């Protein structure tokens, strides 16, 4: 468990260092990026002093690392007086809600589809589940998200537009469902394969022989034994989920981490940009390491010398 934490901290530190040097070493004067080409020398010098860009690189880096440890990466340039980290944490809530609901819906839908595809209910038509999942997994969210929104929210109006302040829970569920579909398709394929591998395992036959229904056998006995790969694929899909969340926030003009990052990018608010990338990277690593640790904890066959 300690190993996971140390590795996670190391990756976050590397990411933060990459952010730091990308914004300073790559060609282009950050102060000119922030103020535009029209700014005077004095204005640029003032901003450079404010962002400590006039100090030697080693000094700046030490200040940045110190800021990382104390969660103080300076004030937002566009909103003076507001710490960059505070703006990021403020925007985190809506995105976290979107992603969390999407994980719940995606895992539920995906595992159900996997059980349906591996169990006996569909007979020879069970391969349809796999084909359907493959088709969904291959369709980019960028293509079907806006079209589904047009059809369901703009034309038929069965769901509210999630960007609408009055949309409430239904809006969140609709947006999360869009985000959850590709995730569900991946989970369906992996869980179907994992359940098929269990196939005719002895403990399933025993459970069946003791009179358990098919549903009981698959849900209570087979799914827990196949949970490892499912948790792993969930972990590997989190990155795609975050990317999808940014696209959906842009689509629905919903407030969140994605819109904050875009806003900071367009207005070149460097402290906010740094904080946003570091915080979301840290969160992502945390979620991923949790998935790995969870996998190790749930499945005694994994762990230690896992390759």
């Amino acid at each position: 468990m300690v190993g996971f934490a140390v590795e996670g901290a190391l990756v976050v530190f590397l990411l933060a260092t990459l952010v730091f040097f990308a914004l300073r070493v790559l060609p282009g004067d950050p102060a000119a990026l922030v103020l535009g080409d029209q700014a005077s020398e004095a204005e640029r010098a003032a901003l450079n002093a404010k962002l400590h860009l006039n100090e030697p690189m080693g000094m700046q880096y030490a200040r940045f690392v110190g800021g990382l440890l104390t969660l103080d990466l300076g004030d937002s340039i566009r909103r003076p007086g507001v710490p960059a980290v505070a703006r990021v944490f403020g925007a985190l809530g809506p995105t976290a809600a979107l992603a969390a609901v999407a994980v719940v819906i995606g895992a539920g839908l995906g595992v159900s589809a996997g059980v349906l595809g591996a169990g006996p209910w569909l007979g020879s038509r069970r391969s349809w589940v796999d084909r359907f999942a493959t088709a969904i997994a291959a369709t980019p969210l960028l293509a079907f998200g806006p079209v589904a929104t047009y059809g369901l929210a703009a034309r038929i109006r069965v769901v509210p537009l999630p960007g609408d302040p009055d949309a409430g829970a239904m809006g969140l569920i609709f947006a999360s469902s869009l985000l959850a579909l590709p995730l569900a398709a991946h989970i369906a394929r992996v869980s179907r394969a994992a359940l098929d591998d269990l196939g005719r395992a002895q403990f399933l036959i025993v459970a069946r022989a003791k009179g358990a229904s098919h549903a009981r056998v698959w849900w209570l006995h087979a799914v827990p034994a196949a949970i490892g790969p499912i948790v792993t694929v969930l972990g590997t899909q989190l990155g795609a989920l975050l990317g999808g969340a940014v696209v959906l926030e842009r689509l629905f003009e919903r407030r969140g981490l994605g819109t904050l990052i875009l806003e900071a990018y367009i207005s070149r608010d460097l402290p906010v940009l740094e904080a946003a990338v570091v915080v979301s990277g840290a969160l992502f690593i945390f979620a991923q390491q949790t998935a790995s640790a969870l996998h190790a904890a749930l499945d005694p066959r994994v762990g230690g010398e896992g390759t």
Partner: protein
Amino acid sequence: MRTLAERLPLVARVAPLAVLLVGSAAVVVGERSPTHLAPELSWAPPSTPWPLGCGEAGVDLLALVAHATQRGVVMAAAVSLVGFAVGCPFGAFAGLARGRVERAASRACDLVQAFPSFLLALVVLSAVARPTRTHLAAVFLLTAWAPFARLSLAQTRVLRDAAFVEAVRALGGGRARIVARHLLPNLLGVVAVQLGSTAAAIVVSEAALAFVGFGTRDGVSLGAVMDQGVSSMLRAPHVLFVGAASVAAASFSLMTAGRAFDPSFARQRLRH
């Protein structure tokens, strides 16, 4: 001699990409411009002179989509080929080294592959004043090698104890020789299967970046079409459909073309 029917699966897998590329190339070499604006034609629905209709400020959607598809697909193919060329030897060397190096490489692949490429893209793109297609390609290359390295590592684990590798080692062959002459030729086929899905993912990512506002300044991207489509959803839904269909078509065709490297396919060819 193989009959046409036997060749058909291979042809069928590459055909969508070929049709897409030839079709868009035909438009690109023609007189249609993706940046010519004709405000009087704003949001005009499809008609004979403008088969896909017009978008914002009367831009010709057919020209825009064709140019964007060409550039997107070419960049995605180039990036995934470079990732392939970097990832294969990396995975093979890590697999041969075994032990700690192998574990570290494997973990690095996992992390890079699962890491939100969006965040990495943001870091790099926010440091440049005007993102160009080269910047985008560099960003995608940061993560594109990982799936290839991972597959190559897995395949090396299978091959490294094979008798022919043992034989080279006994004859005094070094690690570089084993990788270059004996491992790589044996694992290229397996790893190449990944080319299609990596390229498809890059095409979609490029469009997604352009959609949220991180595209190139010329605005020639499938994401820009989607952006126009979303903002004019109620006025001119055809823009949205054209954008969505072309993103899906580019992604599907790259994915199916990649399946031409499928090992089951190679076996089928060997039999004949």
